[in-house]
């Protein structure tokens, strides 16, 4: 159906183009055929400039009205709210400048469209004007740079203050694994050379390292709300990128080195599901999925909101489906969950 609609649209556009060419040509009967713009070309294209400006504003408004509800919900991490504030400020600057400059550009194009006999103004220079539009960006950008750098330094300052939880994120083609540091909160040494798939040591953990014994390897990340988490990130094969859009978090996974990122989750999964905009988004999506289910299509089960970890660096064929669920919960729920997980020490003991 969509394919048919598209074909129809394309055909109609083709006809429109053909007709437009005709109209342009008919509007020029009687003039000499030099293929150089004449007064009537200038007039029509001047009007089209205004029409285009309206289109530009129109598509902006249309996109905002229609697509704002698809955007990410509020940040679910501590630094995330700072991120959102800076984003909002930058967006305001951008839209202010965009609205004005596009207006000037297209309006001038319309207003000063050429006419035979009209004289353009020989206006080659004005130091004061140029100074003004150099200094204004300098001031605005200085503000944004300082704010951004301040936030960046805070976000990237990864330390062991406030008793952070240490978790390793481990990437491979095409799945994620996480490793909790356990009771000692220290990750055991690991290297790809110690991977032993037969013994279920997929992360290459050094089984002679005492710190490794209490480590817990899982396929789903649970985080206690309000506690800082330090992620240590590794990859075993190619570049990946650990992307958690809801927490405004992203860091590449680089084979041969450990990268890190730290944040404090502030909203539990259960709380997030109750936010009005999340409810809206989920309802909207489930409506689409219900339609698909009615048509008997796959991948149409109702969806429930969850935080998710995506891969955001091209990593091969199934790059598009490399994900892991993240659950933010209360301290008690988290403790209960982590208790129920098997430590690395126990799992190798079970192997032997």
């Amino acid at each position: 159906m969509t394919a048919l609609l598209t074909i129809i649209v394309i055909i109609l556009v083709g006809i429109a183009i053909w007709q437009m060419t005709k109209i342009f040509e008919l509007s020029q009967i009687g003039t000499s055929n030099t293929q150089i713009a004449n007064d009537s070309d200038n007039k029509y294209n001047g009007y089209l400039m205004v029409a285009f400006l309206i289109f530009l504003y129109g598509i902006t408004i249309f996109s905002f009205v229609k697509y704002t509800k698809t955007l990410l919900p509020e940040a679910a991490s501590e630094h995330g709210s700072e991120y959102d504030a800076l984003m909002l400020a930058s967006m305001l600057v951008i839209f202010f400048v965009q609205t004005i400059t596009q207006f000037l550009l297209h309006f001038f194009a319309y207003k000063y469209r050429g006419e035979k006999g009209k004289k353009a103004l020989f206006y080659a220079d004005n130091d004061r004007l140029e100074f003004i539009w150099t200094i204004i960006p300098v001031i605005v950008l200085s503000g944004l740079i300082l704010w951004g750098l301040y936030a960046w330094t805070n976000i990237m300052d990864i330390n062991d203050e406030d008793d952070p939880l240490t978790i390793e994120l481990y990437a491979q083609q095409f799945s994620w694994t996480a490793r909790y540091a356990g009771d000692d909160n220290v990750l055991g040494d690991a290297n790809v050379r110690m991977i032993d798939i037969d013994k279920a040591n997929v992360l290459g953990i050094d089984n002679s390292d005492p710190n490794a014994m209490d480590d817990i390897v899982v396929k789903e990340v649970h985080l206690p709300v309000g506690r800082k988490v330090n992620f240590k990130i590794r990859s075993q094969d190619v570049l990946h990128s650990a992307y958690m859009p809801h927490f405004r978090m992203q860091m590449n996974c680089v084979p041969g080195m450990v990268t890190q990122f730290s944040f404090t989750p502030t909203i539990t999964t259960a709380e997030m599901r109750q936010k009005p905009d999340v409810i809206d988004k989920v309802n909207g999506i489930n409506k689409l999925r219900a339609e698909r289910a009615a048509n008997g299509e796959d991948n149409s089960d109702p969806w429930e909101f969850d935080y998710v970890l995506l891969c955001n660096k091209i990593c091969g064929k199934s790059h598009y489906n490399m994900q892991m669920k993240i659950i933010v919960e209360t301290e008690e729920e988290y403790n209960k969950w982590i208790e129920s997980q098997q430590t690395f020490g126990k799992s190798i003991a079970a192997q032997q």
Partner: protein
Amino acid sequence: MSVTANAHVEDHSGDHGHHHKETFVTKYIFSQDHKMIAKQYLITGLIMGALGILMSVLFRMQLAWPGESFAIFEAILGKWAPGGVMDADVYLALVTIHGTLMVFFLLTAGLSGTFSNLLIPLQIGARDMASGFLNMLSFWIFFVACIIMLASLFLEAGPAAAGWTVYPPLSALPMAQPGSGLGMTLWLVSMFFFIVQSLLGSLNYIVTVINLRTEGMSMTRLPLTIWAFFVTAIIGVVSFPVLLSAALLLIMDRSFGTSFFLSDIFIQGEVLHYQGGSPVLYEHLFWFLGHPEVYIVILPAMGIVSEVMAVNARKPIFGYRAMIASILAIAFLSTIVWGHHMFVSGMNPFLGSVFTFTTLLIAIPSAVKAFNWITTLWKGNIQFNPAMLFSIGMVSTFISGGLTGIILGDSTLDINVHDTYFVIAHFHLVMGISALYGMFAGIYHWFPKMFGRMMNKNMGYVHFWVTAVCSYGVFFPMHFVGMAGVPRRYYENTAFPMFDDLADVQVLMTVFAIVAALVQLVFVYNFIKSIFYGVKASQNPWKATTLEWTTPVKHVHGNWPGALPVVHRWPYDYSKTHENGEYIIPTQDFVPQDVPLFEDEDELQH
């Protein structure tokens, strides 16, 4: 009807007086004439660009209707689209080759190669490039690069598919994906030739601009096109060799077992021997070229737009010296901002701070340029030739796309939009579409100079307006897709239910993209038809001041049949008047550069 200066005819054209015996081969194939080489670059570049656009249509269809079967997929992709459903590997290959073709082959070689070759000698008043032979060599090396790149499309395992940045280890390990086998080898070899041609070309441009300017053509009388090409060539010479080293080291890692970029890798059940290298090193080397590269793409477009805008607004470009200063500032800054592609690569966060600072600085010269263009339109007498429309369109997309750079250049804000569709929307507008508009402006404007005929203006209008609407139709909503968190280079977004409500945006963008691609056929038809049947051009159809329009319509070897023109003024004396309001030359609103100053005329208006 333009007044030309005949007072300065001196015969220093003696060595060009004789006629070279020209055969078909020396005239059309192994030509050393810069005008012919420009045309060769243009047509080769356009063919590569057309392929790139076709690929984008294919993968946009996959994104809009994931997993659906299309006869066209089966027809074009064959075994890579079993039953007409595109395979995930070939999706990545299409994305990769699309990027490579558009960035390097169309917008670097096709844009800069065409117009630097055509305009440098013509606008500075030289008989040809400093070395016609090197110039010919650089085109043919480019041609070899094209052939190798195209050949890689027909490999059993498919072409390179690691993204146009070909980050190792994905690009280094044949077991990581099928495209990293022979396809990647050919990609690297092709790029090797590409870099060589780019260096030969750039050195030639630099030498020509420095040494072969005609009498009176001081640096501050150069048209802005030449300034842009000149500075572009310098950036190319500075940065392309670094890409060559990255490519060489990657070839070593792939074929000779070295570990420059690889370490600690376990793939498909075995540990590889690589130890001690770092993919981050590759990223530094790649982006040391990669970022200047986007300015290599956009600066020529800026130069062309400045020139076309002044001609068609019948006004001098506003702030000529500020325009030159901003070209230089952009060029300088462009070489020290590459790290903004790597904020989340794992490099030291302090470096991120430094690169944020330098990156946002680059917004200042860019803003100056945008404001100067807008002021150039103010109180003009704007002639809406197709080239002018594309120039105005370029300023519009450059502003729209440039502004979002404020977000991406800020290391903090980059965290969450890095590698999402927000980036795609940003760079397609600011360097893809803008550079393409610059290129179209150049083609429509200098077509009469290249082929001696005019392009049809009505088809030009249709071409512009439909393209302009569709470009925004594709890339404006795309920002929202990125802000919703959709990563780039995903074969389909259906694995994440949270992206389900973006499916209709994808369809909207794809329909706009298909229409945009189709309307380029109008351009192709116009271009080809006009070469053979276009209206014959007059010598100076746009009433421009620059020297290329003082040459005869019919191309002659050495460009000017007699002596070289002598330059007496800057290139932007449009609508210049005496104090009494009369044009300098009565009944003519422009004064060509080779007209001497009149007695009561001031030169220094700029």
